[in-house]
């Protein structure tokens, strides 16, 4: 069966959910203007070579898109609690199509969050050539792959009560370690951990503005490794999770 009509309804449900709007759209925008607003004329944020409006724009894109990707976990947890996942299992919707719908919905929500932040960035004077906008967006889209799997994994492990705090805390921590709030240089104690965390590489996408490659080989490997591991775990969690709640 084609999963497209199903995905359409998934999207409809998601955009009608108030929690999604607050966490993935409103919250990053408010934080952005609070943090980057006062520093809008700073052309070189803490020696990173990147202007404050651009750095924080990408930092908060990382925050908002991670929230958007992981919010699929919250939807899955509530669907499981309602017995809906079992209802889907006794329909012809294949597991593959189910995952495709979840991932596609999460990505479209992440893109929406991204576009909103780009517009905010532009109002604070972020200016990049079209090619760099595209390159940056492509890197972020790729860097979000592990979070698509993580959302599905958490959704099949946690209850609707526990997933809210887990996602809220998790995104805040990942954003902090990833460098959303300040650039992580090799001198920073967080750097040695951060370079193995996918959120760091999301924030690093802003380095396209410096020319050259924003990600080195390590970046690609970290993203690929997390994606493979989390996808395998998510698949396992889905398979085991057939019982009544």
């Amino acid at each position: 069966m084609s999963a497209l009509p199903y995905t359409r309804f998934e999207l409809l449900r998601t955009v009608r959910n108030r929690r999604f709007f607050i966490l993935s759209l409103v919250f990053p925008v408010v934080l952005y203007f609070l943090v980057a607003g006062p520093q809008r004329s700073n052309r070189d944020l803490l020696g990173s070579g990147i202007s404050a409006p651009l750095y924080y724009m990408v930092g908060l894109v990382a925050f908002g898109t991670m929230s958007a990707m992981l919010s699929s976990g919250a939807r899955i947890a509530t669907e499981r609690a309602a017995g809906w996942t079992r209802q889907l299992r006794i329909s012809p919707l294949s597991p593959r199509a189910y995952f495709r719908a979840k991932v596609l919905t999460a990505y479209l929500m992440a893109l929406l969050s991204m576009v909103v932040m780009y517009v905010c960035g532009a109002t604070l004077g972020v200016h990049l050539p079209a090619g760099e906008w595209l390159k940056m967006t492509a890197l972020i889209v790729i860097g979000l792959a592990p979070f698509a799997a993580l959302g599905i994994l958490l959704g099949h492990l946690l209850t609707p009560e526990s997933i809210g705090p887990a996602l809220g805390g998790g995104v805040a921590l990942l954003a902090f370690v990833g460098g959303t709030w300040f650039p992580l240089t090799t001198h920073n104690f967080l750097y040695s951990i951060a370079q193995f965390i996918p959120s760091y590489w999301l924030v690093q996408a802003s380095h396209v503005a410096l020319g050259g490659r924003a990600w080195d080989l390590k970046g690609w490997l970290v993203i690929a490794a997390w994606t493979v591991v989390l996808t395998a775990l998510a698949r396992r969690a889905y398979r085991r999770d057939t019982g009544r709640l």
Partner: protein
Amino acid sequence: MPGRELLACPGTHLETPAAIEARSLSKRYGSIEAVRGIDLEVTTGETVALLGPNGAGKSTTIDMILGLSEPDDGAVSVFGDTPAAAIGGGLVGAMLQSGALIRDLSVRELIAMVASLYPQPLGVDDTIALTGLEEAASQRTQKLSGGQTQRVRFAVALVSNPRLLILDEPTVAMDVEGRRSFWETMRELASRGKTILFATHYLEEADAYADRAVLMAGGRVVADGPPTRIKAMVGVRTIRATLPVAEVAELTRLPGVTAAERHGQAIVLSCSDSDSAIRALLERFPEASDIEIAAAGLEEAFLELTAAQSSLGAALPRSLRAGAQPS
């Protein structure tokens, strides 16, 4: 009603395999043996009630038929194929026990969403009309009453236009009116040749709507036959009386009595025919006092049957089964 012709099954083949065929199906959860080797065959077009108290293994059996859980032992086929294949082909619609609905969609949207997953669904409007949801159609699912929610869950099972419809305690949260119109729809579906298996712990529902009732208790099938026969079997009454002198063995031999127990000064008789039993009791023991006759609850009746089965071996259900399905 619009769209009824859509419900008809395309062509009936004489050689079609059984809608459900389960052989020595077993499932255990930890130390609990939920289902202990049951055999169940449901032929195409039949309406079968899976009757039993809570914990009898009905839902576990249904889960295995639907492929939601793997049997530890035995096998089940649906239309001659694996449950997964039958479900993949959209042949089965089911209303599971104790489910809720996902939120942020209208009733119509939710039904359309489910319809989009099936190869030959019913029309969304036809389904809404069949389940009496016209007034609730544009409401969000989280704003529905308990009875409306059950109807939507029924609609979700129905919109797939399945050949086999499986319903696990479908009327539990319904009001009287909801129940009545629900069973009316079920009758209509049965007359269109749908195969229906429903689990219930209401004897009356099995009696009124099923061609056949399969009685489960303690993870086993304890009886399988026409609902009237099952009704007679579980229509147990108990007589309680104060009677200090009588021997239990003697009481058990009274006509119409299936079992007797003594609790101090009091006796309790389980009766298949309480009228004969009370006459015989008073004739034999005129001093019996404080007499109460009560209809046993279904739970008690089920326990009685399970006990009878374990003491008689499997003789009871087998004889019933032979009587129920002359070949």
